[in-house]
């Protein structure tokens, strides 16, 4: 009670009363608070001076802090502080740190990169992150692909060739696989015969009579399979026509089918419907030549390189 009296004597009120007797003290702000506020004002002034701040005419005041960087043309430029210029310096620094490795990658032939223990370590780590970022969405983290969609990069069968040069070519320009839908030119029986023939090439359970008929059809002008897959059905890498005589399946999910009938049916599906989905994007615009070279060696070393 006495304390209240004391305070009401020393502290001003705002001078108005609500509901007859409700008054409001006009206490000063705590000193630390006031000075902190002044400090923020000073901070703002300093900040305005250093960094871009006020709009001015058709532009703005850039502030006194500058960033100097080297651009892709090799010109040294200075610009008032901003995040885009900051990115330039960041990229410059990173480029300097990585340059020895990327220069070596650019200068060395593929075989030599793969045989240099230091470079091999760099390829494994840099390639892994490049692969994860750009390739794994389709070919999966380990490069094993998805049957029916994207080829396995770890086996020894290649649609377009597994040499360093061919892998490089695929990465640069992309690929587009195509096989016409044979349901438009062949009847169901003929397609079944072809499917049995293809199955027989890989030693899958099949109907021998149908396979024999399929063999003839395969090499005839009616179906003309041999144009792309060659007459011994080993495929043509220059057009991405797969080898039909090995155990590797991409478009027809033969391994998933448990019965011989199922396997033949999967092959029949591909022959009948054709394929227009073997699309590999071109990476030349997205990745630098050195990055593509790193990926080339990385993919080659995934196990299937030839």
């Amino acid at each position, binding site marked *: 009670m006495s304390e209240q009296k004391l305070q009401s004597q020393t502290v001003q009120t705002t001078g108005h009363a609500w509901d007859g007797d409700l008054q409001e003290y006009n206490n000063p702000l705590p000193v630390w608070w006031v000075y902190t506020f002044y400090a923020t004002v000073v901070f703002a002034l300093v900040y305005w001076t250093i960094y871009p701040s006020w709009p001015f005419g058709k532009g703005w005041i850039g502030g006194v802090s500058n960033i100097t960087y080297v651009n892709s043309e090799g010109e040294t430029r200075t610009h008032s502080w901003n995040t885009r210029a900051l990115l330039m310096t960041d990229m410059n620094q990173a480029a300097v740190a990585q340059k020895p490795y990327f220069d070596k990658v650019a200068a060395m032939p593929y075989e030599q990169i*793969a*045989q240099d*223990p230091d470079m*091999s*370590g760099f390829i*494994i780590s840099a390639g892994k992150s490049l692969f994860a970022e750009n390739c794994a969405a389709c070919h*999966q*983290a*380990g*490069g*094993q692909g998805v049957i029916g969609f994207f080829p*396995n990069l*770890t*086996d*020894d*069968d290649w649609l377009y060739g597994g040499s360093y040069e061919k892998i490089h070519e695929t990465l640069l320009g992309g690929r587009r696989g195509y096989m016409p839908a044979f349901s438009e030119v062949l009847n169901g029986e003929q397609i079944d015969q072809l499917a049995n023939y293809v199955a027989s090439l890989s030693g899958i359970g099949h109907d021998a009579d149908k396979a024999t008929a399929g063999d003839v059809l395969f090499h005839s002008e009616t179906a003309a399979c041999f144009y792309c897959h060659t007459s011994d059905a080993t495929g043509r890498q220059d057009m991405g026509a797969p*080898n039909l005589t*090995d*155990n*590797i399946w991409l478009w027809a999910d033969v*391994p998933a089918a448990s019965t011989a009938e199922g396997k033949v049916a999967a092959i029949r599906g591909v022959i009948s419907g054709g394929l227009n989905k073997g699309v590999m994007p071109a990476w030349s615009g997205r990745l630098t030549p050195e990055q593509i070279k790193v990926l080339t060696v990385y993919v080659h*070393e995934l*196990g*299937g390189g030839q």
Partner: protein
Amino acid sequence: MQTGLEDQLGLYQKRIPIFTRSVKGRFRRFKTSVLVLAYAIYFLLPWLPWSRLDAPAQAVLFDLPGRRFLIFGLTVYPQDVIWLALLLFIAAILLFFVTGLVGRAFCGYFCFQTLWTDFFIWIEHKVQGERPARVRLYRQPWDREKVLKVGGTHALWLLASLWTGLTFIFYFAYAPQLLVDFFTGQAAAAAYITVGILTLSTYVAAGLMREQICTYVCPYGRFQSVMYEPETLAVHYDARRGEAAHGRAAARAGQRTLAERHEKGLGDCVDCGLCVQVCPVGIDIRDGLQYKCISCGLCIDACNTIMDSFNFPRGLIRYDSERNLASPTPAAPTLKWKRLKTIGYGVALVLMSTYLVYSVATRGNFDRAVNQIRQPLYVVLSNGDIRNRYQIRITNKASQEQTYVISARGIPAAALDLGNFSEVTIKSGHSALVQASVRLPPVVAAQTQQFELIITPLGKSAEARTENVRFDAPGKRP
């Protein structure tokens, strides 16, 4: 009303300065020898030379940029962190073990806070004199003498703190070079920051805060009570003997001899107060065992001196167990270790120390890790063969370059393909990654659950190490 109470108590208690009297005796001698030994090791070790091929000639060098710790002839790599973990475990168990036996021996004799405080008090004593002189100086106004003496003390403390901080960083680089670099402004920023922090913290902790570190900051002081047992030996005041029926009393005329005192029902304590004056944490041990007591034994020394001068038997304050003191017929204090806890800790200590020594003694000259590529776990090749791939990482821990040869056992020799590296040469302290693949025909693959990869340092077949690795094939389930 509340305001008044707060004013009285304050938010924390103001430190009452403690001016310890120096004392002579067994425990003082022990403390001094521990101090000298510990300081000799800490301050001189970085200057001990040790010839090395690939590193500065320093016996103990924590080479952080090189990711290795050179300790005499031993090189420890970060992957040996298990040794550090083990060492810390051993230290913790040792602490529990010792505390269970003889109380806070670590606090009283070995803790760096105690050592540095002891050293700082010694400096204070040398500059300002014995306790009465220091109390007088404290009360005296700030005249020339006080400014000189107190200023000199603090200057010496700061110097000692600086050298403490410097010595710490000497462990992380070649000391003679670093010393020069430090004072010529050439050392790394981290060096200056570390020295700055350590100088300041040493000065504040050992010079200004002293016992408050033990009382308020150190957690160990607070959880010691759970490690004490009734049989634990600790610094105790024998209250039964000291107080008797009518309490302690000064040795005035007529109560100077034991016979006179016992006749009057007085205890053996002559209330000289010396035990309080020598105490570095400023407690009165006669109030019983308390959490502030760091068990330094100085009060024992002080009391024994007085007992001797009166020709009373020693041991009014002594190491004794709670149980013995409370027993109706106290025996001579003995170390009782035949308890489950003590034996348990002891066994753990012996086992862990043995393992640590064994592990360090039989360390290999290289580390290896074999990881099977998990995605994909296996690949079916065009002719039906199954291939598994492995990443082999070899780290050369030897002090010179070494070539390693990788071979396989349990699979046909031709099945192992090491790609481009049939053997790999690794610099000291470096590691290399080798990609290996194993290709087996389906029939063999189905029968091969696992095989062995053998990594042999070239020319040192005795050091070969074998790793068991899995081989996966379709349709095979673990």
